[in-house]
């Protein structure tokens, strides 16, 4: 299981970095260390599940700025902030931007390791969700533009004949489209299709328009 996990640590203090690596490795987790935000961004591998231990204050790009950059790039790796002198407004800002923990140095090792475990679990769930969503998204992308128009109307609860007159098509054609949608989306009923899309916060327009 540890093969696809990686704990990233970013801190400008090398002694702190190595000691964190030593501590985290002692519970059997692989660790990758960087002494600047830019080094981390260059080496970051999104395929691995894990979390980021991030120092708030660093020369160059600060921890908070890195968090912002990651958010912008839609990289949602869980972040645990570690700081030498944390103040309340800074912690609030970090947590608001989605950090899962804010720890003051030196910290209790158990607290840190618990946070790391929690972060890994969170990342795993997020990944599964993301993966499922991507699969649905992929299927959604198979729909033709016409089929998407029909789907859109179906989701608002319109009957076939209403849709047919809406789109100036025959009921037979609508039924055909509907059956194709069901096939492509791999669902058996309209109710199942709608709940699938809602669960992943998707709709007919979410797919990339070709």
């Amino acid at each position, binding site marked *: 299981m540890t093969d696809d996990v990686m704990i990233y640590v970013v801190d400008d203090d090398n002694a702190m970095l190595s000691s964190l690596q030593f501590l985290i490795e*002692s519970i059997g987790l692989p660790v990758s260390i960087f002494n600047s935000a830019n080094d981390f961004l260059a080496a970051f591998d999104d395929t691995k599940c894990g979390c980021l231990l991030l120092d708030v204050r660093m020369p160059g790009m600060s921890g908070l700025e890195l968090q912002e950059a990651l958010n912008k790039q839609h990289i949602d790796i869980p972040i645990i902030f570690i700081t030498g002198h944390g103040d309340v407004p800074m912690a609030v800002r970090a947590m608001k931007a989605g950090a899962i923990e804010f720890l003051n140095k*030196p910290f209790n090792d158990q607290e840190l390791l618990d946070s790391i475990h929690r972060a890994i679990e969170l990342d795993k769930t997020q990944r599964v969700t993301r993966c499922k969503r991507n699969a649905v998204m992929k299927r959604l992308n198979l729909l033709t533009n016409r089929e998407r128009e029909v789907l859109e109307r179906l989701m608002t609860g319109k009957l076939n004949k209403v849709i047919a007159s809406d789109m100036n098509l025959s009921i037979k054609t609508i039924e055909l489209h509907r059956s194709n949608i069901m096939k492509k989306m791999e669902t058996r009923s309209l109710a199942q299709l709608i709940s699938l899309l809602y669960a992943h916060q998707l709709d007919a327009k979410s797919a990339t328009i070709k």
Partner: protein
Amino acid sequence: MSAVITEQDRYRKLIETIPHGIEEIDILGNIQFASRGLYTLYDCEPGQLIGQSIFDRIPTTAEARKLEIQLPKLIVNQPTIKPYFGQKKTDTGRIIDVQVDWNYKRDDDGNVVGFISIITDITERNMAMKRLSESEELHRSIFETAWNGIAVISPDGFFLECNPAFRRITGYSKIELGCRKVRQLIHPDSIHFLDQFKKQLYLNDHVHAEFHIINRHGIKIPVEILTGTTFTYHGQPAFLTFMRDLTQNKLVARQLRQHQIELAHVARMNTLGEMTAGIAHEINQPLGAIANYSKGVIRRLSNSELKPDDALINAIGEISKQAERAAQIITRLRGFAKKGELKKIEVDVNAVVRESIEFLQPELGQNDITLKKRLAKILPRVKADKIQLEQVLVNLIKNACDAVAHCPPANRRIHVQTHISHEQSVEILIHDFGPGLSEEALAHLFEPFYTTKESGMGVGLTISQSIIEAHGGTLTALPIPREGACFRLSLPIQEQ
């Protein structure tokens, strides 16, 4: 006989050489004799004047008429003679001021048969008099309206004359000052100045001093005195003294000093806080590393098959515990030196910018630095601690001064700009045209104890940044490719 002729000749010659005009007229005012001097006076050829009427020489008809009426009266009443002052018209049209000294001409029986007059041109003299009186008037009005006190003082220390400003400053009337000596007006703490002052006055052209006087109401007033050397006043030597009331200056200076003290206090507290925080941060790093390593060792030993001695595990546990204890001590220390609460009020950022610049005016002047302000006309108020904000601005502008102080004159420039940014914040830009910041400096600028100055502590920018961040704002250095350095201070506009 020849002796008589010679005598007459001598008188004639004498009369001809007199520069004044001499004339003889009959009782009707017709000229019977005119000396060479008179011809010169009237700009005409010799001989021309004989038979002319003296009334024709009067420039105004009214005056001529008056004299025409006067003449018969003189002959009848024969009053005591007194010089006549009037004007005459010359042949070239000039009008001259004249003084006419005259007497009766009588025959052997004592009857008045005419007049003899000596006419003197007093045009020049009158002009000079007029100029003098104008000059006198000017000086008088300067004396009366001068903002500074002016007094004329006798060598024995009495006030001979003093202007309204002098009376206003001292509170005494002219009469009250007239019977007082200088010494009576000097405040006891400045009395020793007086002797020094006198001594210096003998050695120098003028003496300049600042001391205290005591006014009519017993109030101590700081004044600046400038006393010049002696001049003659009504035939007596006297000193001219100028006095300026420094009360307002001193008040402004005291307020400025008070403000300086306040700023310095805040700066000291901030420095202390930042240094403690900086040290705490620096020491917490190795302490954290010690704790991490020892915890890691304990975990590894517990998991391994080595089955180590309990004492060993305990010792390592102790190492980590002590590191934590040290960290706690530092945390407490930091809490102790924590910066005071911000006293946030609604402030006008432009006003704070202006005050900060005003505060650094001496610095700018000394180094011949041009500071250009481009302040937004309308700026929403922001909630901030005014003193802390001013502290940051003074620090940033002072840095800019240091950056350009040793540059060629063309680069000794600083631009300060305020505006509203689209992100709903008020921005202040401080741009200097100095050598700029290196890549390295840009990366470490805000770290505590990082400095590029020889005598710097490296906490100024760190403090500034933490103050601005405590206001919910940001302070950043913008990399400017070619010219100088630019700092951007951004404060959020509060929601209504």
